[in-house]
């Protein structure tokens, strides 16, 4: 479905994740973060950039992997994105909901 955010139209799925990463920019990310009650700091953006890089390299993301990334440890990841951090951060980053295998 379409939605307007930060002055642009983006496509999101029923859970609010962007369906095409091409439509993402930093303003969109900031606006999505505000909806999750998060004020983005440079440290937040470092983590978001890391997630986007991993996504572009087709690396599936998990909390465990982020904890071992050297970019951020799990404690800090939770401080930055307190509620369901991996999902929240993925949404802000404009990448798909992490596929926890079933």
């Amino acid at each position, binding site marked *: 479905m379409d939605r307007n955010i930060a002055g642009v139209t983006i496509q999101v799925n*029923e859970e609010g994740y962007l369906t095409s990463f091409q439509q993402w920019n930093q303003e969109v990310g900031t606006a999505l973060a505000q909806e999750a009650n998060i004020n983005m700091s440079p440290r937040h953006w470092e983590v978001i950039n890391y997630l986007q890089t991993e996504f572009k390299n087709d690396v599936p993301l998990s*909390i465990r992997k982020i904890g*071992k990334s050297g970019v951020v440890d*799990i404690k800090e990841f*939770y401080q930055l994105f307190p509620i369901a951090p991996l999902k929240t951060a993925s949404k802000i980053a404009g990448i798909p909901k992490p596929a*926890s*295998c*079933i």
Partner: protein
Amino acid sequence: MKRIVILGAGTAGTMMANHLRNHLKREEWEIDIIDEREEHHYQPGYLFLPFDIYEPEDITKPIRDFIPHGVNLIHDAIDRIVPQEQFVNMVNGDRLHYDLLIIATGAKIAPEETEGMLGEEWQKSVFDFYTFEGALALRNKLREWEGGKLVVHITEMPIKCPVAPIEFAFLADSYFKNKHMRDKVEITYVTPLSGAFTKPKATTALQHLLDVKHIQIESDFAIEQVDNDRKIIIDYGGREIPFDLLVTVPTNKGDELIVRSGLGDDLNFVPTHKATLQSRDYENIFVLGDATNIAASKAGSVAHFEAEILTDNILRYINGEPLKEEFDGHANCFVETGGGKALLIDFNYTHEPVEGTFPLPGIGPLRLLKESRFNHMGKLAFRWIYWNMLLKGTHIPFVSTKMQEAGKEF
């Protein structure tokens, strides 16, 4: 004479031994299968053992009984694979050369990954049911437990049979009802996922059942530690959940031999092409069952579908033909819902669990995503099918390897 070596004689390895022996000439191919255990465990039975539904002897049988004539069964622990030299090294120092290798060493629990899980309370008030020993110890505990807060918990994904923990919660509800003590037990289901399951449709169906059975759910819980003194579990965000009895599914990992061989990812699962089941690093190594890193369920039913496709692909590989990109992630599993009922879900890489009938479009008799007694019988029949058909590589009538779309509501 060339040699195929199969690592692991569990569900997947045993099926491959049976399939390949049927297809490959004995004078051309020797087939060896290695396992450190003597007993084959029917792991789905671990779910029923704690509730006194199955006895230990229902779920273990000698591995030897399922290995066909013409396949050498080697009973030893594997140290590592040396893929550059095409050798498997055994812990006892033996070495075995292979032309083609199949990795089917499965997944196991790693409670040591979570701080405090293996603390003083382990097997006193903290239990797992993903091992035979754990399920048995839990059975003994449940027989005498007088009630309190029961917490059923998943540490992190992926885990084998991802529906088993919620089934455990449903069966616990029935068990305590039958013992006339349901009012003394508070059941909470704690998951790292954002709902009862990963896929939205199945989540709705399962959430409804949790509500009906008065089982609380705590979602998005990423455990940091088990506090043995205070008997609580704590997540990275500081959330605390108290328990009197914690039934946890610890982190699941591949065997350490995969790390020693330099072949695994961060959970010791082997990077594998998801449609062909060839290893990503070596073309003469194939991987199936719980040992792979592919985003399909770690389930016996998946291993069964994979084994049929992998057999074709190995025959192609041997004949120098291109591999077929066939595996679609097809899984189907019965979900025990307690009170003698079950539901059935069927899904693959791209389709989420759907409603409809199975295996015959429009007829069933099994109903997808709906609770019924017939589904429960199906789940119990699965044990018979497992021992008598699945392991021997017999094709199960009407059940196709790839997911069928007829008769299902997408």
